């Protein structure tokens, strides 16, 4: 304005003519890092991605995020040992985010709301899946979404595999399992039950199926030679759990000894308590620390009155007792006999010494390599027999429902690619890991994990009611919001606020931010004050 005194009085905002971006030697760069929860998930889920929706109360969107990978949120929300939480960066601040509990809440909410998943246009291709367990049903779900016609065959009269016949109802209520399976079946999957597949080659000879997925699981309980009297009752844990699941519980008596140290042993002992056993003793040859069973299982078993005998082997089984030999660990940590014996009263002995897969269906397919009881597969889970894939407990790896679901998902993708004639499954972008030292934890308020209510331990022993309760709407939201969004912008506006030069442009909800390079001097405040480490400073090339 000319009426203003020359030079002494200036027009407001005229500094915009001075492009201070020229001072910059480094520039902020918005990045997306791989959160540890996603890295750790055997099912290949990215919990952060769906928690983001859950934080806002968009539960259906969150649930669909899960369903993109895992069709069993309600099941996994109960039976998963959640390695995601073990990896969670929040553990270094207070406690890990209860990802698993939120997943269960979302799974249950979906069942309450009756949410369904659409299927794609039919391709006309048919796929055979052997085994209606988590791996098989997951593969069936994804293939069906992709438009392929899927037939699932299983020897058992009911679907679910280990989810039904291995995991007791107090850990996984059957109505939940049935509902999530029913949702898959409703998509058009053909279930062919009570129909074991004896010879895969013969099965595929008809050419009805363009591809097959072997997911028969490991159903056969391992045995060991123990001298036993004629009248001694020795059962196998798997068949015991199977019979209980089928409603034909075996007679065990008042005093039960379970032999083994895995989760199955805990399941057997806790089931025995529920079947009326006054004493349930777990005998294991190593120490608690070396026990393969997950802590939560051991802990809950203890709460339910199950007792443990570490460093012990069963030498002999009599009519109403077992003879136990004490062991000691040698320097390699291997148990060695001590020659010291004692007796335990026992009406029945349940063997939980691990399981093997029944691979007889491959007996006429020698080209399919098998090593140490597991089918050999490539990265795409395909066997040596083109078009024949395998996953779940029949291949090498951790034998959990979560891992099986991961296999099912990967196999489905691989089978789809195979059917389309694509070479490899397109791999997702490789992201740098979001480590805890990349965070600025100051900005995260302290928060304890939401309480997961439990039924009184006393009630568990005579009922198969679910032991661990779920989160309600409030606590689910609470838990979801504890996520720190490691390595990925969650629009906290810090970068926008801390820039001394107003050089961060806010694009609006969901759109994030961009740097105005006309004015950014490259001070790096935005990167330092980004809570989740989603901004890098990169040198300007000169």
């Amino acid at each position: 304005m000319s009426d203003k005194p020359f030079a002494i009085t200036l027009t407001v905002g005229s500094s915009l003519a001075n492009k201070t971006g020229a001072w910059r030697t480094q520039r902020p760069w918005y990045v997306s890092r791989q959160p540890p929860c996603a890295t750790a998930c055997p099912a290949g889920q990215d919990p952060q991605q769906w928690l983001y929706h859950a934080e806002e109360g968009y539960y259906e969107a969150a649930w669909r995020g899960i369903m993109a990978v895992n069709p069993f949120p309600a099941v996994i929300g109960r039976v998963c040992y959640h390695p995601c939480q073990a990896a969670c960066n929040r553990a270094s601040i207070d406690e890990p985010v209860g990802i698993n509990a939120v997943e269960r809440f979302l799974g249950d909410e979906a069942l309450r709301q009756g949410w369904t998943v659409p299927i794609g246009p039919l391709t006309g291709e048919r796929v055979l899946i052997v085994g209606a367990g988590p791996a098989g049903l997951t593969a069936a779900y994804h293939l069906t979404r992709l438009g392929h016609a899927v037939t699932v065959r299983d020897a058992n009269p009911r679907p679910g595999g280990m989810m039904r016949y291995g995991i007791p109802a107090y850990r996984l209520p059957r109505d939940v399992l049935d509902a999530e399976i029913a949702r898959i079946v409703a998509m058009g999957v053909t279930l062919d039950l009570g129909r074991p597949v004896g010879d895969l080659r013969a099965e595929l000879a008809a050419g009805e199926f363009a591809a097959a997925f072997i997911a028969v699981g490991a159903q056969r309980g391992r045995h060991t030679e123990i001298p036993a009297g004629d009248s001694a009752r020795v059962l196998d844990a798997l068949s015991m759990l199977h019979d209980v699941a089928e409603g034909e519980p075996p007679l065990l008596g008042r005093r039960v000894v379970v032999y083994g140290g895995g989760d199955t042993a805990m399941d057997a002992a806790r089931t025995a308590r529920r079947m009326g056993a006054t004493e349930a003793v777990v005998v294991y040859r190593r120490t608690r620390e070396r026990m393969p069973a997950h802590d939560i299982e051991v802990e809950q078993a203890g709460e339910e009155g199950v007792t443990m005998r570490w460093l012990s082997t069963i030498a002999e089984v009599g009519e109403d007792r077992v003879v136990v030999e004490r062991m000691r660990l040698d320097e390699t940590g291997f148990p060695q006999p001590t020659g010291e014996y004692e007796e335990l009263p026992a009406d029945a002995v349940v063997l939980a010494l691990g399981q093997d897969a029944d691979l007889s269906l491959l007996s006429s397919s020698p080209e399919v390599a098998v090593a140490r009881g597991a089918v050999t597969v490539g990265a795409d889970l395909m066997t040596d027999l083109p078009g024949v894939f395998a996953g779940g407990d029949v291949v090498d790896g951790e034998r959990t429902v979560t891992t099986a679901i991961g296999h099912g998902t990967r196999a489905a993708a691989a089978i789809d690619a195979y059917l389309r004639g694509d070479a490899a499954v397109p791999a997702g972008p490789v992201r740098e890991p979001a480590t805890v030292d990349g965070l600025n934890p100051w900005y995260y308020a302290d928060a304890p994990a939401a309480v997961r209510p439990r039924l009184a331990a006393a009630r568990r022993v005579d009922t198969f009611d679910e032991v661990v309760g779920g989160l309600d709407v409030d606590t689910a939201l609470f838990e979801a919001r504890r996520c720190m969004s490691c390595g990925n912008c969650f629009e906290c506006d810090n970068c926008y606020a801390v820039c001394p030069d107003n050089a961060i442009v806010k694009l609006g909800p969901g759109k994030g931010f961009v740097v105005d390079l006309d004015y950014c001097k490259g001070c790096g405040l935005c990167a330092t004050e980004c809570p989740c480490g989603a901004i890098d400073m990169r040198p300007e090339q000169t």
Partner: protein
Amino acid sequence: MLRQIEGSRAVAEAVAACRPQVIPAYPISPQTHIVEALAELVSAGSLAPCEFLTAESEFGAMSVAIGASAAGARAYTATASQGLLFMVEALYNASGLGLPIVMTVANRAIGAPINIWNDQSDAMSQRDCGWIQLYARDNQHAADLHVLAFRLAEQLSLPVMVCMDGFVLTHAVERVDVPDQSTVDAFLPPFAPRQVLDPGDPVSIGAMVGPEAFTEVRYLAHLRNLDALERIPALAKEYGALAGREVPGLVTPYRMVDADIAVVALGSVLGTLADAVDSVRADGIRAGVLGITAYRPFPFEQVRQALRKVRRVVVLERAFAVGVGGIVSADVYSAIRTPLWTVVAGLCGRPVTAGSLRGMLREATTDRLKPLTFLDLDHDRVRRELRAVGGAR
């Protein structure tokens, strides 16, 4: 209205008639009676709306005036001597920012040695601070100059200093026609600032200016200051017509028509000079007086014209530059470019008597006056002191 009234009171009432809106003040003799009177008028509600603030220092007082003026309020304050010097930084800022503040300086000497009596060393020390400087010859003039000062300041967006001799005028009870409200209102429109701090139309006032523009800023300020030489006579005429009396503007000649010796001076000494001139004329000495009202900007042309035919020019100084001599003399010389006499008189309240002035005129006309003379200097005392320090000359 004609009143027998103390100069400070007359000035305070003239200022009040100008409706100042913010008056910050810090007390210092001999300015006190002016701000006391204004404080009373504000408290009594007869000057409203107006904010009277007691500042924590003269520096603070001028700073408050700067803020008030920049925010669009008519601001006034008064000070003297050390107080004016304590304000110096803010004085330059007020003129640099072009804020039309009006301030009375009740002229007083500067210490050390500490003193309270009248001379013009204080205002003279600020002759270059960018303010317009007007010097009152008597209390009527002082009262009228304040009314004129507000209009002039606001026309030019420049601060104006009205200088009146401390005690000699501020404490003298004389006959004054105190400007009445209707006359002032007719002459002085409400303050319409050139620039104002307004959230509705924001500007940034007080930028840092470097070599690329500072010279131009200063040159423009100089032109604006010179503009006062055109406006002052017009305003004096206009206001004089309204007030019904003559209001001395840039310069005032007295018996200069046939004068061959002229005394140039500022302030209250002009009255005494007129008496002295009258009496020496009785002795046949054709003397005259040129009174200067507007010292900044300096009216070179008017002074040149007034002294055109004069053979001898004496500049009577109420202040002096140690190591140099006359202050006003330098300005007068650059106006006339002919040799002149500098007489330093009445420092720190030493009376300037008609007798001494007559003697001065006689010496001047007989060429016995030294180029730099200290009127009524106690030569014996000086000689004794010089001897005492062994610095006899």
